[in-house]
């Protein structure tokens, strides 16, 4: 493998344009937050029934994708695949950017974002949310250190490997914590399952890698640098395996629930009721976000092009957002089963399927989180020596057989 040269990116007009667009989205999110703060959450689509809405879908998607974006770096440092090493810095930077974007959305949707300092200083250690605050903050520190040691002159490979391993273990803990936000909710039949943690881990592998592939494929041409087709296709094959793994874990989750009589009504609601959630589940999550991209990515390599890989990555990201929408909104839309065997009604929507129509403010906040991640990643590659000058296939691994 040839020596890798990293250089700061010189902003081109195209990069400035992306920065301005991303900045506009962040500004729109800021305005939406001010509006919600002024009037209260009554201007959103969230209610006392659907208490977590579209902002949480975006926030949790970004947080899950953040830990997955570290895949490529982990594969290089922890599992010794040196052909991934030139991308490791960028992988780390993108994971930090995505986490910052996700946390930004999560915090700004709070009823009291002004009390962030309370959340940072007052902990109830029985709460997985409190642990997540620590896990999120720790992720910034550890991945920051990981990027730093990679950029050190003459850093020993042993040191890079140690810090990389710590980051890998931390990101597994982080996604376990994120999945457990739902897995440890005993009250609702849609959650309350240990499989939520590993499901979220495998979702992170898939969504994060999809994001990384797209950003890689965009950044290199924009900065006039070369990226090899084989490299993209190899990452694409890995993504295809992850997409299938997400389908597998989802299948196990729903089959287990179907087996338990008390969760039967919920499963029928999500899978077979013909409502928005079952349509999103089958067409959005399973077909568009799982089966189709898996087939695109895993079919014989000679038939695949990098454009197919990019398209499949986009489908996986859209399917991922839908997957989280079904989990988060669908899980709340189904009424709480306080009185099994009774038909229930009340002025507080007991026993009723809960409606949710997100408003433009929630969408603006969510998209602002993605834009913030793009901005942070962009500033990172302009300011630091993150991106290699080339990711040409011959430089990475001259011995590799062409796809």
């Amino acid at each position: 493998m040839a020596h890798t040269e990293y250089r700061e990116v010189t902003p081109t007009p195209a990069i400035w344009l992306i920065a301005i667009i991303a900045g506009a989205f962040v500004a729109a999110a800021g305005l939406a937050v001010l509006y919600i703060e002024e009037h209260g959450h009554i201007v959103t689509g969230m209610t006392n029934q659907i208490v977590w809405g579209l902002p949480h879908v975006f926030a949790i998607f970004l947080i899950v994708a953040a830990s997955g974006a570290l895949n490529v770096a982990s594969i290089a440092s922890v599992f010794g695949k040196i052909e991934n090493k030139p991308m490791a810095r960028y992988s780390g930077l993108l994971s930090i950017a995505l986490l910052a974007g996700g946390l930004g959305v999560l915090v700004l949707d709070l009823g009291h974002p002004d009390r962030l300092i309370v959340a940072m200083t007052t902990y109830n250690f029985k709460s997985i949310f409190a642990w997540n605050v620590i896990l999120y903050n720790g992720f910034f520190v550890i991945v920051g250190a990981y990027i730093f040691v990679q950029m050190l002159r003459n850093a020993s490979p042993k040191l890079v490997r140690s810090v990389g391993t710590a980051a890998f273990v931390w990101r597994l803990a982080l996604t376990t914590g994120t999945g457990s936000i739902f897995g440890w909710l005993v009250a609702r039949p849609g959650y309350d399952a240990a499989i939520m943690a590993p499901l979220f881990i495998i979702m992170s592998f898939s969504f994060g890698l999809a994001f990384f592939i797209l950003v890689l494929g965009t950044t290199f041409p924009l900065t006039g640098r070369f990226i090899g087709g084989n490299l993209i296709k190899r990452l694409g094959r890995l993504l295809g395996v992850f997409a299938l793994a997400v389908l597998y874990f989802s299948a196990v989750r729903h089959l287990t629930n179907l087996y338990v009589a008390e969760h039967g009504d919920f499963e029928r609601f999500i899978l077979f009721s013909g409502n928005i959630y079952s349509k999103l589940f089958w067409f959005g999550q399973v077909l568009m976000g799982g089966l189709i991209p898996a087939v695109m990515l895993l079919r014989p390599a000679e038939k695949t092009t990098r454009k197919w890989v990019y398209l499949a990555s986009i489908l996986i990201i859209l399917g991922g957002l839908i997957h989280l929408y079904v989990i988060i909104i669908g899980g709340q839309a189904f009424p709480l089963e306080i009185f099994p065997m009774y038909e229930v009604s009340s002025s507080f929507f007991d026993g009723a399927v809960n409606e949710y129509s997100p408003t433009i403010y929630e969408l603006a906040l969510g998209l602002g989180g993605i834009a913030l991640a793009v901005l942070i990643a962009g500033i990172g590659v302009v300011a630091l020596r993150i991106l290699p000058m080339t990711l040409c296939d011959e430089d990475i691994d001259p011995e590799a057989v062409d796809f």
Partner: protein
Amino acid sequence: MKLPALNTKSVRPAELNRREFFKSGGAVATVTLGTGVTLMAFGGDAHANADAGKRWGLLIDVNKCASDCNACVKGCSDENGWKMDGENPETDPQWIRKVDLKHKQTGREVSMPMMCQHCEEPPCVDVCPTGASFKRVDGIVLVDKHICIGCRYCMMACPFKARSFVHEEIEDQKPNAPRGKGTVESCTLCVHRVDKGGEPACVEACAKTGHQAMMFGDLNDPESEISKALLAYSSTGLRDDLRLNPGVRYSNL
């Protein structure tokens, strides 16, 4: 009824020092608004007045609860200042509500009030990241409005849909029940009354109608009326399968 003894023991050890700090500063910092609305919500006095020897609870006789009666709900609304005008039913808080039930097999119809069940093992307290959601040593589950960040995780966790989020600015607050936009709230078991030896407004309102469907008292005191009733008649806690041991129990359900 005897006044509960002063007890400063906290069930939130992590909170102790900060709480002590707020309490000492609170005497100076407490701001009186208009007709006596105080910013010192339940973080200070209410917690200090809790008696560790007691466990306050309710027993609701479903057979005595009339389906066309809403007195308990109105009593709570009047006492604590949350409106029940039905303008925004999806976002308006409801600290207590009437639930109508029809058994799917037998067709038996009943009506009963639902509110915070003041669990011994409250999931809302477990999940709250800052400890704003807390249980007093006498079993009353409350929200400390000062450190509630409005994340709504407690609302996700509550099996009884007992909590509401304040979606808009609140006017005409009651001095005994300070509330705030962007925080979560629920039935306080009228802690301000209980700490003065009284009973919750819903129980009082129910008694005034003559239905006598609600009984309040100390579950730990074998001589209390509620304990004797629980000993004599069968009752059930909602979602007993979760083993949360709610302080609110229902008979004839």
